[in-house]
């Protein structure tokens, strides 16, 4: 019948013998074995989760004050800034929170790339992560439209128009997305509805992502699996305190932007109310989309450019099968490591290309950057996995730890 419960607290015990939620949480977030050698890069999953919580909490309160109507949206945002108690705080936490959510997730993704966290048996963890990333991008874009400033309106126009690149079905799709024949009130209304819905879908996928990683266990800088209790520490208190500490400097930087540079990452044109008759001199998305925007503009053909932009994200789905290496961590693959860092620089360079007008040197750099981006996944990773001879690896996590720290492997 009911499983034997182990909690001292009688109320928790009572619940646990009827609904094993406390047992589940205890198993997954207290005694769950984590590799003892994980570094601070492993904290960015938890940090991203904190950001998601901040976004949902502030977003809910903003939604109570916001009005999704083309004639009222801009003024309602300014009303939040001026007349709602701490409305300015909610809005700046939310607007800058989106950027910092992306920063955390980008670091999380690059960490996965470097240490081969997508490799067998973590393919599903990775795929769910890519779905989260796609949902984030959709949600971020929808949210950018809501204040109904100039950049909101024109970003919505440019991005939705990308779908018109598809032959035959393109224009009907765009009309369907808009709910009319231009970006207008129906567009804003549905964007608000979807912007409210998607974070909860995202939260659901995050739970699946976390469940999946708790089946196969976390990867670690050595890319070697846990072989016994000597290789691991319990999740709580060891990893919880490490994540909590790591979150502090991150939140400190976030708060610096919220309180002292709240508009630095945004475009001033978004403080001009949307005007369909005036096109801004240059339309840019939020900075976290700039690398993809550069890929889009690198290709002169609209259809192929759009396809390339989507492919740049979709290629991540098949990454677990593109990587032919038996070794996960780039720590043991110096050649792969070199090309990984070139890839990081490539993404940053593409970001600058996306922020610059598409002319002169920027077009050439965008094209070179886009070529390297795809070559990294489709050529370098599969080929290097076959031909690169990895460095010798330690037999186990504990062996490596003992060698590095000289500290006793006290059983935690």
């Amino acid at each position: 019948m009911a499983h034997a419960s182990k909690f001292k607290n009688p109320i928790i015990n009572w619940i646990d013998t009827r609904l094993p939620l406390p047992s589940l949480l205890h198993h997954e977030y207290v005694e769950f074995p984590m590799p003892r050698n994980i570094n601070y890069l492993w904290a960015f999953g938890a940090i991203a989760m904190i950001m998601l919580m901040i976004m949902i909490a502030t977003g809910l309160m903003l939604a109570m004050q916001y009005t999704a109507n083309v004639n009222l949206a801009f003024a309602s945002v300014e009303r939040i800034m001026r007349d709602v108690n701490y409305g300015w705080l909610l809005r700046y936490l939310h607007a800058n929170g989106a950027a910092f959510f992306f920063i955390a997730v980008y670091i999380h993704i690059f960490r996965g790339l470097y240490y081969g966290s997508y490799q067998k048996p973590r393919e599903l963890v990775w795929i769910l992560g890519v779905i989260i990333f796609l949902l984030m991008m959709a949600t971020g874009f929808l949210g950018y439209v809501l204040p109904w400033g100039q950049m909101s309106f024109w970003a919505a126009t440019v991005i939705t128009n990308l779908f018109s690149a598809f032959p035959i079905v393109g224009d009907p799709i765009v009309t369907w997305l808009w709910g009319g024949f231009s970006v207008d009130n129906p567009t804003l209304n549905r964007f608000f509805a979807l912007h409210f819905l998607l974070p909860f879908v995202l939260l659901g996928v995050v739970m699946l992502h976390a469940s999946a990683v708790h089946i196969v266990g976390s990867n670690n800088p050595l890319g070697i699996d846990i072989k016994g209790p000597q290789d691991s520490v319990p999740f709580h208190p060891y990893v919880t305190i490490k994540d909590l500490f790591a979150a502090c400097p991150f939140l400190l930087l976030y708060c610096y932007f919220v309180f002292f540079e709240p508009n630095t990452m945004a475009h001033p044109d978004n403080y001009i109310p949307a005007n369909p008759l005036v096109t801004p001199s240059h339309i840019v998305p939020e900075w976290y989309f700039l690398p993809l925007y550069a890929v889009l503009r690198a290709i002169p053909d609209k259809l192929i450019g759009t396809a390339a932009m989507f492919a740049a994200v979709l290629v991540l789905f098949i990454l677990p099968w593109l990587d032919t290496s038996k070794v996960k961590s780039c720590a043991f693959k110096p050649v792969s490591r070199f090309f990984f860092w070139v890839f990081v620089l490539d993404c940053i360079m593409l970001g600058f290309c996306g922020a610059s007008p598409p002319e002169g040197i920027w077009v050439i750099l965008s094209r070179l950057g886009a070529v390297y981006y795809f070559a990294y996944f489709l050529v370098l990773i599969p080929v290097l996995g076959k031909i690169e001879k990895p460095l010798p690896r330690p037999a186990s996590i504990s062996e490596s730890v003992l060698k590095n720290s000289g500290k006793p492997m006290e059983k935690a």
Partner: protein
Amino acid sequence: MRSMKTVIFAAALAFGFAGTALANEGVELPEQNWPHGGMFGSIDKAAAKRGFQVYKEICSNCHSMNLVPYRALLGLGFTEDEVKAEAASHQVTDGPNDQGEMFQRPALPADRFVKPFPNEQAARVANGGALPPDLSVIIKARHSGENYVTALLTGYEETPPAGVTVLEGRYYNKYFPGNQIGMPKMLNDDGIEYKDKSVKPTAKQQAMDVSTFLTYMSEPTQDERKHLGLRVMLFLFVFSGLMFACKRELWRDVGH
């Protein structure tokens, strides 16, 4: 160590992109030294009050400030009676009354600044086709905000550079994108008489004062934001130290 590098790297990334996004096209703007600049700065209320006088006597003849109510002036140190009197000096349309008619009444502190023109078309026809922008958030709606506004207001040149023909009804301005602006030079030395005689109303002084006023009106909560921000940052800084100590203590005897 590597994780610290990553954090710094991420920060550099954020700043880098912001930097590119902010890069202004064309001429370099002179940067003023604003009392409200930086983490510890706060709005110079006396300057903002003088700026209100500039706004009222000069700017408000053409520019609206639709998002700002008269009560926002309380934050600059005007008394309640002064704000009521200021509001009451403008007429707003209200109604319909019991007879079903719209009527005029003096504005109240809760009313928004009364617009100089009833609609965009009226504003354009009175300004040679140009539309004077609403000034509620003008400082946030321009690159370099208050520096740009100050530069623009003092950036007129009587004789444009050789080879430049200024269009009919336009004026040459060094800082305006395209250099041909619909607004004539409005601020002149001693063009206004400050109540505070110790401040000389040069054009530059007026420009800085009205920019300070507009900076305040673009976000009246900004001093409160910085004040709260310092306390939040201080808390997080101490909390970081505490968490670091806890982490060190817990992991002290655990090889990792």
